[in-house]
């Protein structure tokens, strides 16, 4: 063996095993697009237990609490609330399930390391996030709207025999009256079903975006709980005239107020609020956060 044996690597290049033609797969290759990612994400979301659990619990909470409330109120002649509004109580809890699922759709991939497998299989990262967002949003919207519609029907069936007392004027208290009986207008129906479903699905989508930003389940869920609950809780503790402006601001833009307004029982003094402008605001915020998450997903190492 020569004394030059440790000279370097260059001499080794001649020993490459050659003479084998590069492999070509016989399976035809498709150019991938968003459709593939959507199908894949649908498979992913329906094959984990967290999806089944969170959505079942949401359904039970919304419909169950709606049913119990309606049964409790059905004895009264007049509850002082719009016909469908008691659906809000169950949904206030049910929305937390949707928020949790939204976060988990993204963060469970980071927590398990699955994200590396996913992004290796689909290096077009934006497509993965978009597919997740679409699949989750549609699923959350359909499920929440179903639950809310069922609750609204229950309320309508159990509470519609309420009559207007003589001391209440048509425009004074919430609710519409027709021939002295409490009814729900078309706008109320829309708000308490599709509106509430959209609102909660948007909150879930915001959670998904926050999950993509923070990449950590507990952190993202805590953040979203804070966003949903804290403004109202803080406002409750702000007594006194000096803090009135802050309190009013917190109350008006609290995510819970948006939902309550869709049920026509807003937390502010503006009793005509329908909640749709707040829903639009939530959509804008969600899209912005989703955009930031999209940009960061492209930039960050996985």
């Amino acid at each position: 063996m020569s004394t030059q044996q440790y000279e370097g690597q260059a001499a080794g290049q001649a020993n490459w095993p050659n003479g084998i033609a590069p492999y070509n797969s016989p399976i035809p290759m498709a150019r991938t697009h968003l459709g593939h990612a959507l199908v894949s994400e649908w498979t992913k979301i329906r094959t984990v237990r967290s999806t089944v659990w969170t959505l079942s619990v949401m359904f039970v909470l919304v419909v169950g609490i709606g049913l119990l409330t309606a049964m409790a109120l059905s004895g009264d002649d007049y509850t002082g609330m719009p016909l469908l509004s008691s659906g809000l109580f169950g949904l206030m809890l049910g929305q937390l399930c949707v928020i949790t699922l939204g976060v988990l759709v993204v963060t469970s991939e980071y927590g398990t390391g699955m994200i590396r497998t996913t992004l290796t299989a689909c290096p077009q990262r934006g497509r993965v996030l978009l597919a997740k967002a679409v699949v989750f949003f549609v699923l959350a919207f359909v499920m929440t709207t179903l639950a809310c519609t069922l609750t609204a029907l229950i309320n309508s069936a159990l509470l519609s025999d309420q009559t207007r007392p003589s001391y209440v004027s048509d425009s004074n208290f919430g609710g519409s009256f027709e021939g002295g009986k409490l009814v729900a207008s078309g706008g109320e129906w829309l708000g308490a079903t599709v509106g509430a479903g959209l609102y909660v699905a948007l909150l879930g989508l915001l959670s998904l975006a926050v999950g993509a930003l923070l990449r950590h389940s507990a952190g993202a869920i805590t953040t979203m709980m804070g966003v949903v609950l804290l403004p109202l809780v803080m406002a409750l503790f702000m007594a006194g005239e000096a803090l009135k402006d802050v309190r009013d601001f917190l109350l008006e833009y609290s995510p819970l107020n948006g939902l309550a307004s869709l049920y026509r029982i807003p937390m502010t003094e503006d009793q005509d609020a329908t909640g749709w402008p707040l829903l639009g605001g939530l959509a804008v915020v969600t899209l912005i956060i989703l955009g930031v998450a999209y940009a960061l997903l492209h930039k960050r190492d996985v």
Partner: protein
Amino acid sequence: MIEAYGLTKRYGAKTAVYNLSFQVRPGAVTGFLGPNGSGKSTTMRMILGLDTPTSGRVTVGGHAFRGLPNAPRQVGALLDAKAVHGGRSARNHLLSLAQLSGIPARRVDEVLGVVGLQEVGKKRSKGFSLGMGQRLGIAAALLGDPQVLLFDEPVNGLDPEGILWVRNLMRRLASEGRTVFVSSHLMSEMAQTADHLIVIGRGQLMADMSVQEFIERNSVGFARVRTPDTEPEQREKLIVALQEAGGQAQPENDGALRVTGLPLPRISDLAHSADVRLWELSPHQASLEEAYMRLTQGSVDYRSTTDMRAGLQQPAGAPGMAVPGTVPPQAAPVPGAAAQMPPAPQGNPYVAQQPVPQQAPQPGAPEGGTLQMRAQQPPAGAAGSSTSSTTKNEGEDA
């Protein structure tokens, strides 16, 4: 074909991979070797577009990975056996990946069969053993029937039967003309699986050569011969005599000679007839594992030696020539120390007998390994008193 050019990755102040350039060609299994923390996984993540290189670039089949129109059909990867959602069944996990790249669902059952998981396809992967997880990861890599395959430590957690299976699988994949890039920290495993080796240490390229060449260069018997340190002219005389007899003598950095091409009795006879006294004549057999360890240890030596020499006189035999492909001429390390980085400071038989002037730890010593390495290196020229004739790595006679 995977091509990396000047690949560098820094995480803050830490450089994980530095100026790495290599090619991985089709039709062969290329082993990617390096100790833990040497940058293998980082390099693989950069190939797969998961991490963005700080500088340099890497292409697969001429394209950046993130620009591939259907990545899983061109590149399959096993990065981490646990990179799956444990709550999903093995089959559904693979199905979601197949759908992502438009692969028909029946291919999922095919690859489940290939890796031997068809029985547990419906089970949630949370309950899988590490070996089953590796098989699931390999199934995911094979799903797209890709031309290029990357496996990060695929035999981790596999039983001997599984290891044999992976070895045969890699060889078969390569023989079909695929590019197979396998990382490992086990040289012995790679020697049996790979055709070509890329060795990195501390994120830098240490060797890039065929396994055959690596064996030829490193796994040879040799004799360590030591003449009295006080009489350098005897050493010169012996070198001349050995070369005339057809042997090769290479100086080692502690003053000994590494002699190849001559049996031990012949060396002794030559020394006797040249009237040269010997302080040591010992047979050595460098295993591949040793060669690899010395190679990667070289990168450690490189840094610690420069620091060490500031406080010690070092008249001759410059150590730390960590040229790629170079084996720093140290005595062989102890078998079984493979998991340690840096290796246990027992390799040199002269160290044990010679009290080493220990320096006080300096503030700002650059790396954790520095102090150990410093203790390992005796000052050259001061270590001539040994009568030990073999190291612990004694093999058959040269």
